[in-house]
């Protein structure tokens, strides 16, 4: 029997028994729905992690030389924390030796930060993330101002008390007024606002707009770190390869400065967006596995249901099988008929499951900040899985049908 005839026959069978077919499809449908939804959400989370969260915290092709990593996505055990605590801090005196070895193509910035109480004439004091940096920072972070300007090299060198503020800081401390040219007291030191940075958005409920940026040598330096200590040197390279090379150079410089013997491990960290994402990538692997394993249970249940329904169908349609055989259907014709029917049934289930899964992903995307997006491969996988489950579940009933003796089959009621 030609394949299309078999499919048409199967669809007719489904149409005749709508309710029964629906219940048959339920297992496969739910399995596929969760497969699509979970994969979409995990993919969405991945994109979110990579682009929004870490992407905003770290610049492109950038590494930060720190005494320990500041982005710890995941569990860090006690021993590691102890080791982190014993590490020497990065110091201002490290800056020149480190950046002196970098090629001219590399950009760099010195970076310190801490939470500092800030106040203005318009609002109550509040804790804000205060950062004091060298001007290279703006380029590395691709920061732009919506009004005003950034501070200059000269202002940085002189330690002029000027500040660029984030959107949230503007909204809180200068409600309804233009902050540029007005005064902001940072830890009781008066600063002039010279610019407002464009909106950075948020990730996982953390706003990236609650910050102020001041010149590195401006007075706030005394509040962010102990004298002579810095949080990080950010180094941006033009390419990923150049970054790897620069990291190696910096590593050697720092090992020399920390007088490490060859056998001793580094007692400083060079954090990249990749190292920050390492844990996420591990987690993502588990999530995708769970996202496949859980629906797999649904699919197994679905295939058992389909097998049962097909066995019932074979029993119910024994006479039909007898008739078909008497008219010249060979074993393989009957086998194909029931296999195609099972496959069509479960592929239809997969189809509905895909629609529902896409719907579920959309719902999650609407109701949560996760940009859940349907991965095309998961749709393809779902269709193949649906057909596969149907065929696997249909083999036994179909082969039973094909082996029926035509005389016995014709005599059955």
């Amino acid at each position, binding site marked *: 029997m030609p394949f299309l005839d078999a499919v048409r026959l199967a669809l007719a069978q489904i149409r005749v028994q709508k309710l029964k077919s629906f219940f048959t499809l339920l297992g496969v449908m739910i399995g596929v729905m969760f497969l699509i939804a979970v994969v979409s959400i995990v993919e969405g989370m991945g994109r979110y992690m990579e682009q929004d969260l870490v992407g905003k915290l770290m610049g492109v092709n950038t590494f930060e030389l720190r005494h320990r990593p500041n982005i710890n996505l995941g569990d860090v055990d006690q021993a590691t924390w102890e080791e982190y605590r014993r590490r020497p801090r990065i110091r201002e005196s490290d800056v020149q030796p480190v950046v002196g070895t970098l090629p001219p193509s590399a950009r760099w910035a010195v970076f310190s930060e801490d939470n500092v109480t800030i106040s203005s004439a318009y609002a109550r004091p509040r804790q804000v993330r205060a950062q004091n940096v060298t001007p290279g920072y703006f380029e590395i972070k691709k920061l732009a101002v919506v009004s005003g300007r950034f501070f200059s090299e000269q202002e940085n060198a002189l330690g002029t008390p000027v500040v660029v503020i984030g959107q949230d800081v503007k909204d809180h401390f200068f409600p309804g007024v233009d902050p540029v040219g007005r005064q902001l007291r940072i830890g009781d030191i008066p600063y002039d606002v010279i610019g407002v940075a464009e909106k950075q958005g948020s990730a996982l409920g953390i706003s990236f707009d609650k910050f102020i940026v001041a010149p590195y040598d401006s007075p706030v330096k005394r509040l962010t770190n102990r004298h002579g200590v810095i949080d990080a040197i950010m180094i941006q390279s033009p390419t990923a390869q150049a970054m790897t090379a620069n990291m190696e150079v910096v590593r050697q410089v720092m090992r020399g400065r920390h007088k490490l013997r060859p056998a001793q491990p580094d007692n400083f960290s060079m954090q990249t967006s990749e190292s920050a994402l390492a844990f996420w990538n591990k987690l993502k692997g588990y999530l995708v596995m769970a996202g496949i394993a859980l629906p797999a249970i649904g699919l197994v249940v679905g295939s058992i249901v389909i097998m049962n329904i097909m066995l019932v169908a074979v029993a119910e349609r024994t006479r039909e099988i007898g*008739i078909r055989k008497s008219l*010249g*259907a060979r074993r393989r014709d009957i086998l194909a008929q029931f296999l195609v029917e099972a496959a069509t049934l479960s592929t239809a289930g997969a189809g509905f499951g895909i629609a529902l899964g896409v719907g579920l992903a959309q719902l999650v995307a609407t109701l949560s900040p996760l940009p859940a997006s349907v991965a095309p491969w998961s749709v393809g996988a779902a269709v193949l899985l649906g057909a596969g489950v149907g065929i696997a579940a249909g083999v036994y009933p179909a082969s039973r049908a094909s082996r029926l003796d035509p005389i016995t089959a*014709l005599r059955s009621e």
Partner: protein
Amino acid sequence: MSTRIEPLGEPGLSTTAERRAVVGQAGVTPSKDWIIVTRGLKREYDMGGEIVRALRGVDVAIRRNEYVAIMGPSGSGKSTLMNLIGCLDTPTAGEYWLNGDLVSEKSDDELARVRNREIGFVFQTFNLLPRATALHNVELPLVYAGVPSAERRRRAREALERVQLGERVLHRPNELSGGQRQRVAIARALVNNPSILLADEPTGNLDSQTSEEIMKVFEELANQGQTVIMVTHEQDIAAHARRVIVLRDGVIATDDRGEAFAAKAGL
């Protein structure tokens, strides 16, 4: 018209040609002319340890264009013989030549092919697919013959017109009367131009008037040159045929011309 093949009992013949030659010595050569030739046809069933011998050696030869009724009381083996002739079953022993072809030794799938090409079944219970239209029911043998769908539909329509059901092609079996259903079944049996129209109690589920109508259809088909073999236990139905074979206890009891049978039966 009766033709008997005497048992030959010559063992050790292997090729089909050799066997055909041996069968031929008895006066009947399995060929296109002799559409059915059986020799020592036996069928035994194992009913839970007890061997039931349904056929105990049937030798029968039927020419092309014959209209034959097979009669017998229940348990006489007529259904078994019909199943064997219809290639739905294979004999325990003996040979069955259909159209010069030794079908008693064919595999399941080969037999399916023979049923599809050579045999058109008409059953007592019609055996139509209940959810399919008359047209689709008639198309079925062509589906398994691999005929493309447009031609299938055309030929099915023609077959239905041949049995005066051209108006009812899209009706389902439950929308048709018993006589109409049987005519759909006849159309289905004829659609692939089979060598034999094989009817099993074709009037068993019909009232006497409809039975007469169906018998007229058979009569016409026989007149047009269609080989018809009909299994029945009703004497008046059997009397329509031109040759009546009566089975008793798994062997042929009588084999008469239709008129002779009718005279004997006092019809």
